[in-house]
């Protein structure tokens, strides 16, 4: 599957490139399906473990990549600077994420992370001659390499503590007992710093607004969804692996960070006038909600083995809520960035919110799709956003962390304001002359499909939710 994705990209015919990428991605989905579900297979001598957990993420990554290809393809056709190397890099980024999602060895985690990051650095910074994009790529790279230095230091300590790089050795060493608790907790802390950067937790989020703003819309869409999902995938696996140690030392800190991430994300988003910057801050807020899910996974109520039975079921609820939330979050953001990409002509990005005034009169479909995405991000009932928040907060409450859930709800209410501001601008105000008028039909229709999915999942989430629960039940690492 993985080699297939890589091999096919070589042919470089420019115009049909986006079609080719789609074919490649669909092939990888077929290969995934053929390999069947349920069973958990250890591949390549312990380096990768393909479980349903990683299959879920693989589909998520491929989905995001397919949509990004559609958006990028349409952006290129409409005069955006043609970059033949965009698609192979996109494929490599997906390759890195797949390895990351199914890694069961410190080395494959590191390599997957680096493949993904390098590809995305170049994607973000790649638009030649565009000052903002090269600056975005530069900042992203600086933060990324800084984070991987911390991550590496943490891994070195973990290796020292466990004596082996495979997750199984680490699990055994942790379970084995007292050992150097300080060392393991220290290693856990450093690695959390590394993942914190990737997931844009509060103390490590400064790069997000600039990079999301500078990079072209379709790249930002990919970054906000797929890259963040990959970060959460590995964070969840790592948290589950290190549970006994993390529960005592880092748990209170994580709780605080989750709350701060949410509030900072929401508060600053209020003050933004660029739509991409606003979405950047909103993605930080959503990272806060997701962190809430991660925190419930390791909450002491669930963590210590004493109440393992109760814990197991609460853990599953939190885990499946996390997966469902990630799915919903990716749908919403891709739809939003898709529309933004569709509206931006050539190099000029459709960024200022005022310029969206009266969009509903000129481009009703694009406005409708953006409206659905915004409503869903805010968590208004009929949309998937509401269901995912509902599952998440119910899991948090069940794990006994009621105050956290309350803070989460307050934050969501807070966020409603700045999402609706976009709607107000689009529908209430009359169109001025400088507003965005023409949009790319292909991209808007793709975004419309997403909006349909958002509605569909919002109304009938049960099926997907049960699947997520089932996935998380047999989580193994």
């Amino acid at each position, binding site marked *: 599957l993985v080699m297939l994705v890589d091999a096919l990209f070589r042919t470089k015919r420019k115009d049909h490139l986006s079609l080719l990428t789609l074919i490649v991605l669909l092939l990888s989905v077929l290969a995934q399906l053929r390999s069947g579900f349920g069973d958990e297979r250890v591949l390549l001598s312990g380096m990768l473990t393909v479980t349903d957990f990683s299959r879920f993420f693989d589909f998520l990554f491929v989905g995001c990549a397919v949509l990004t290809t559609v958006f990028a393809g349409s952006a290129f056709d409409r005069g955006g600077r043609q970059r033949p190397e965009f698609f192979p890099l996109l494929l490599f980024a997906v390759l890195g994420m797949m390895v990351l999602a199914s890694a069961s060895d*410190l*080395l494959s985690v*590191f*390599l997957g992370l*680096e493949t993904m990051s*390098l590809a995305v*650095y*170049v994607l973000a*910074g790649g638009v*030649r*001659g*565009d*000052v*903002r994009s*090269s*600056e*975005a*790529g*530069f*900042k992203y*790279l*600086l933060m990324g*390499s*800084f984070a*991987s*230095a*911390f991550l*590496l*230091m943490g*891994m*070195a*300590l973990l*290796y*020292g503590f466990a*004596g*082996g*790089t495979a997750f199984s050795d680490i699990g055994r060493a942790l379970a084995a007992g007292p050992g150097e608790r300080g060392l393991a907790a220290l290693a856990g802390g450093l690695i959390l710093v590394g993942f914190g950067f990737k997931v844009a937790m509060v103390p490590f989020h400064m790069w997000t*607004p*600039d990079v999301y*703003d*500078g990079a072209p819309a379709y790249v930002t869409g990919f970054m906000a969804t797929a890259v963040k999902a990959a970060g959460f995938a590995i964070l969840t696996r790592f948290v589950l692996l290190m549970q006994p140690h993390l529960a005592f030392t880092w748990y209170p800190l994580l709780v605080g960070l989750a709350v701060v991430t949410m509030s900072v994300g929401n508060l600053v988003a209020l003050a933004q*006038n*660029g739509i991409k*910057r606003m979405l950047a801050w909103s993605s930080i807020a959503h990272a806060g909600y997701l962190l809430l899910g991660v925190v419930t996974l390791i909450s002491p109520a669930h963590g210590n083995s004493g109440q393992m039975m109760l814990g197991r079921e609460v853990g599953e609820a939190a885990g499946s809520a996390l997966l469902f939330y990630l799915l919903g979050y990716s749908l919403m953001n891709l739809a939003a960035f898709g529309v933004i990409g569709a509206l931006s002509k050539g190099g000029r990005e459709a960024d200022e919110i005022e310029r969206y005034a009266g969009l509903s009169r000129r481009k009703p479909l694009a406005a409708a799709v953006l409206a659905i995405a915004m409503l869903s991000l805010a968590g208004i009932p009929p949309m998937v956003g509401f269901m995912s928040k509902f599952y998440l907060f119910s899991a948090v409450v069940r794990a006994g962390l009621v105050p956290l859930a309350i803070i989460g709800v307050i934050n969501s209410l807070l966020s409603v304001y700045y999402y609706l501001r976009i709607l107000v601008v689009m529908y209430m105000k009359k169109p001025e002359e400088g507003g965005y008028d023409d949009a790319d039909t292909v991209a808007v229709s793709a975004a419309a499909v997403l909006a349909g999915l958002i509605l569909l999942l919002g109304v009938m989430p049960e099926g997907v939710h049960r699947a997520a629960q089932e996935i998380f039940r047999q989580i193994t690492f």
Partner: protein
Amino acid sequence: MNVGLPHFLTVSAVLFALGLFAVMSRRNTVAILMGVELMLNAANLNFVAFSRYVQRGIDGQLMAAFVIVLAAAEAAVALAIVLALYRNYGTVHADTAQSLKR
């Protein structure tokens, strides 16, 4: 006096801190990248030290080898971006690249 594991770990910690200081105190982009290289090197030192003392197997050294190769790849891309940045901005100072701050 025999050289124990803590000696290596202390040296690597000091190196890590030096790298951290270099990254934080420098304005010149290339110098920041050098600081990051130093931090990666400190982590490498840890890997090899642990592989020597704790685990008879040499996974640690292999990991260190991979880290070295990866640092090279990252440095290549980083310097390419610095060049692109220099072409657009004319200077290489991290603070001046602020056009994104609205």
